[in-house]
């Protein structure tokens, strides 16, 4: 078996705040193979965005990052800033949640895409422009010749997100990290962007890490899913297995919270919420972080931290009482 493209080992992130450390991510490990789409799912504040930002070292200086992020055998966390800049945008690209503000308002989109190309590939102005046009076409922006000279404020949110994706794909990166790429967009446009992501993986073979709080998005695009809770991995498996045989009560709770208006026998099903709130991350847990919100919690859950176990083939759960119901 070939080594994975990206290997995250025991990634820990804590923030040094005025009232002590906040443990945003706690010993998270996962791998990403070439051309694979990994979905990372969880509630707000579970550490999924922090994880993705830690991969490209985008966190502020108050963050203490531990562990290793091996990309092609090189630890990104130990790279010099010069080498790191050569990886950013070239090997690993990032798409932000906010397409409305992530483009520089004073430059045309063609210029902004071209800038990345000129920096990493040393293209000439004209060649960069040609390639930018090609990229706009790739992300299916209509009338790309005209859009090239548009300023960001002239584009809609969905168009801007396409431009951001075009920019991220400019240098044909091996990994694309997309942090909630569809959250800020209309539902119809979300579908278009997800379609595009699938298309990119298919055509370019780019591996994608898709951060989302929307299990529907994951079901649509991902090959494998990692469910995070309170900075730790709660469950990980292939996407079909996760939806067919969810094991962690948190995952089951998340699945119950998906609106399904057209299912059932006409009767409207009440959405199941998960009671309680995400626990504070100020102290390292001495119990299962989900125990307070879990119907299966018992003495064991409240006194020990569950370790990850393989309950089904390639299906890992951190729970003392895994099971489908």
């Amino acid at each position, binding site marked *: 078996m070939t080594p994975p493209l990206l290997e995250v080992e025991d990634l820990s992130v804590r923030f040094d705040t005025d009232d002590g450390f906040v443990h945003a991510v706690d010993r998270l490990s996962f791998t990403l193979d070439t051309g694979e789409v990994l979905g990372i799912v969880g509630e707000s504040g579970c550490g999924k965005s922090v994880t993705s930002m830690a991969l490209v070292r*985008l966190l502020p200086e108050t963050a203490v990052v531990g562990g290793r992020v091996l990309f092609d055998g090189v630890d990104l966390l130990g790279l010099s800033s010069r080498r790191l800049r050569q990886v950013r945008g070239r090997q690993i690209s990032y798409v932000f949640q906010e397409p409305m503000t992530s483009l520089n308002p004073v430059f045309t989109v063609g210029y902004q895409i071209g800038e990345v190309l000129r920096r990493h590939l040393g293209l000439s102005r004209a060649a960069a422009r040609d390639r930018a046009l090609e990229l706009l076409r790739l992300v299916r922006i209509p009338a790309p010749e005209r859009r090239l000279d548009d300023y960001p404020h002239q584009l809609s949110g969905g168009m801007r997100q396409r431009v951001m994706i075009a920019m991220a794909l400019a240098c044909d990166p091996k990994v694309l990290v997309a942090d909630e790429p569809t959250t800020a967009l209309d539902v119809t446009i979300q579908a278009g962007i997800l379609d595009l992501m699938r298309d990119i993986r298919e055509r370019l073979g780019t591996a994608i890490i898709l951060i989302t709080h929307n299990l529907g998005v994951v079901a649509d695009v991902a090959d494998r899913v990692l469910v995070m809770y309170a900075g730790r991995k709660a469950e990980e498996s292939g996407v079909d297995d996760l939806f067919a045989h969810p094991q962690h009560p948190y995952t089951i709770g998340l699945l119950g919270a998906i609106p399904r208006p057209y299912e059932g026998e006409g009767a409207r099903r009440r959405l199941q919420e998960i009671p309680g709130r995400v626990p504070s991350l100020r102290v390292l847990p001495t119990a299962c972080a989900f125990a307070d919100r879990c119907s299966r919690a018992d003495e064991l859950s409240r006194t020990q931290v569950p370790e990850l176990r393989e309950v089904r083939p390639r299906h890992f759960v951190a729970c003392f009482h895994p099971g489908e119901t």
Partner: protein
Amino acid sequence: MSVAAETTSPADPRARRRRLLRKRFLRRPMAVGGLLVVAVFVVVAIFAPWLAPYGAGATDFNSLLAHPSSKHLLGTDELGRDVLSRVFWGARASMQVGFLSTMLAMVIAVPVGMVAGYYRGWVDTVIARLTDVLLAFPFLILAVGLAAILGPSLLNATLALGVGAVPGFVRIARGEMLALREEDYVPAAIVNGANDATIIFRHILPNMTSTLLVQATVTIPGAIVGEAVLSFLGLGVQPPTPSWGVMLQDAQSYLAQAPRLAIFPGLAIVFAALAFNVLGDGLRDVLDPRTTR
């Protein structure tokens, strides 16, 4: 998926935005007037040798302290020099000092302020506190002090006024940077592999041009008045070279007999300073991002 639904405005955006800005500018009569007066002064300064009826130092001993007449539109001074010509020639010193000292201040202050605002930390603390200390000095006092140290000359007056305007620009550039570094396009540039210099000067600097432009139109009249003050005090342009400040200084001795010798260069200073200020106000209104879209 519906691609068509995402389509927005028609093409040719740059021309349209420029047209919009021009329209908004033209709707402000004060600003347009300011621009016209500024343009007149600049033209006069550049073309003084051709526009002035007499040379800067040309004397007419047949008409000393003459009243305005068809021969000397604004009269003559105690040496028989044509006042109108000297106001024209004096515009050169004023415009030169106004523009050059402001440019000097920007070249020094903007990078310093941006670096302070971008990196924060102790560098920022030192620069910001130093700026506060310098801003505690009135601008002219600072400039007078510097000019006194450097010695009197047009170049030194320019340097003194330029350095005197540095703290104001540092504060503006730093403040803008503090706001702009939080914009989402900054991390977006970082993950695309841009280095700090690229981010500061290519991505952030263009976003603060309108603010800097407005600050410049406020600094220029300050420098014009400053030049007059320095020359009046003998720390700027040296007689017989004409400058509005020098003319005021010369007029002092004849205030009782010929107050017009002080009034005409004084009016020139007032109009020049006022025009720049009014233009600056107009530009600020037009370029204000909150009303741009």
